């Protein structure tokens, strides 16, 4: 069983590395963006906190979303549409195990992006991480959360065209309204209200508090609103995915 899982993981990673578009979009672009913005705005404060205290969690969320929600969901929908899972269902390997390996690959990629951002922050910009353990643990939890969302989206949507269209339609607004690049405070009030239903915005909020615990006291209500929103979202998504999974069976 372990040999099978390792072989499956090897294949997943090889196939991923052979698709440069995924690598570019989910890993390289956010890393270069972080470098660029870091060099431009590294000395600027935002809401009383340093640029890096705001934007390291933010860029980590962008990498997470690109590598897990977009990438994993895209793969699950694409493989489902091609009929790969149908062929594999004639083998002894359970679909659950295959999905587990796909999700684990997403986990490793998100972790890699996270480590690269932190290394750049520490060695390029001489950033000190205030609460490294809390931040790393929180990020790992956020990876798992995002992978669940991405996997769930892949189960709910049947066609790759539909998935791509949905991601195009939602990803750009989610990215812009996440407070990870352009400060939300600079946007019109209506945009800021829309950000309240943006999971990227709430994930960024939570990770910013994990980065610097002192931030908690400056916006207790905002932090708990983000937590409740994120928990609620995963519960609702889980219910829909559960219904769809049972229907397919």
């Amino acid at each position, binding site marked *: 069983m372990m040999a*099978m899982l390792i*072989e499956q993981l090897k*294949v997943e990673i090889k196939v991923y590395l052979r698709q440069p578009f995924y690598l570019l979009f989910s890993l390289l672009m956010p890393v270069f963006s972080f470098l660029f913005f870091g060099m431009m705005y590294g000395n600027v404060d935002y809401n009383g906190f340093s640029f890096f205290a705001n934007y390291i969690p933010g860029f980590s969320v962008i990498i997470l979303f690109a590598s897990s929600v977009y990438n994993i969901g895209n793969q699950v929908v694409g493989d489902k549409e091609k009929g*790969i899972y149908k*062929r594999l269902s*004639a*083998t002894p390997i359970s679909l659950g195990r295959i999905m587990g390996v796909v999700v684990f690959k997403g986990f490793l990629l998100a972790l890699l992006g996270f480590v690269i951002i932190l290394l750049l922050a520490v060695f390029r910009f001489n950033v000190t991480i205030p609460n490294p353990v809390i931040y790393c643990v929180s990020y790992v939890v956020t990876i798992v959360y995002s992978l669940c969302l991405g996997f769930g989206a892949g189960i709910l949507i049947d066609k790759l065209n539909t998935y791509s269209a949905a991601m195009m339609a939602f990803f750009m607004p989610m990215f812009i309204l996440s407070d990870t690049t352009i400060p939300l405070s600079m946007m019109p009030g209506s945009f800021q209200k829309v950000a309240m239903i943006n999971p990227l915005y709430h994930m960024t909020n939570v990770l910013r508090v994990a980065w610097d615990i002192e931030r908690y006291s400056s916006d207790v209500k905002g932090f708990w609103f983000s937590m409740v929103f994120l928990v609620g979202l995963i519960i609702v998504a889980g219910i829909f995915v559960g219904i769809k999974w049972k229907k397919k069976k």
Partner: protein
Amino acid sequence: MRVNNIKKDFKDVEALKDISFEFEAPSFVGVIGHNGSGKTTMLEILMGIQTATSGTVDYSNEFELKDMKENIGVILQSNAFYSNMKVIELLRLFKSYYKDSFDINYLMEKLKITDYQNKYYDKLSGGMKQKVNLALAFINKPKVVFLDEPTTGLDPRARHDFWTVLKELCNDTLLFLSSHYMEEVQKYCDKIVYLKDGELLYAGALDKFFDQQESKDLSEIYLRISGGKDDGDVD
């Protein structure tokens, strides 16, 4: 194996109506019928990919039901694998799924695909892809094999090569193979399952079918019975 009163309904379409038959290894069973007759649906139920609305499939003479996926091999009508995957990687991956399997080098030599092992699967020609699909279908030394239109789209030479290799790989195997090429079913199969509009017209020895139909030309019998009709695919 024994198939008992298999029925399959899709919303308001009765895809299979009370299908029952019994075959034992070694046999080559040709599954024939017009487009939409239920061939793929029936094969996918036997493979365990689809579930029947009612009825049972009994493999107890071949293996225990819990070991079914370890003991069957399949080629689907449409076989897709991960993009950017090499042939050798695909074979290693599938080998890892089974408790007992052939040596990969042995299979590659048998199927004459050793020179293609480092090529990407989706860049291969149709004939080569089917050889790789055959390797994947037989990698676990299956007792029962299901091949859904494996020779469709292959040129005559590729079809000939396919059958040559298939006969070499089958060793006390119960093989089900659907095909629209009546001449190859007649040449290579000793049993047939004939479906029309989801109903079983005949299941049994090909010789007996010829006696019943008073003809030894399967193409002529097929055209007479099925009328050359194309009803579209509900599979």
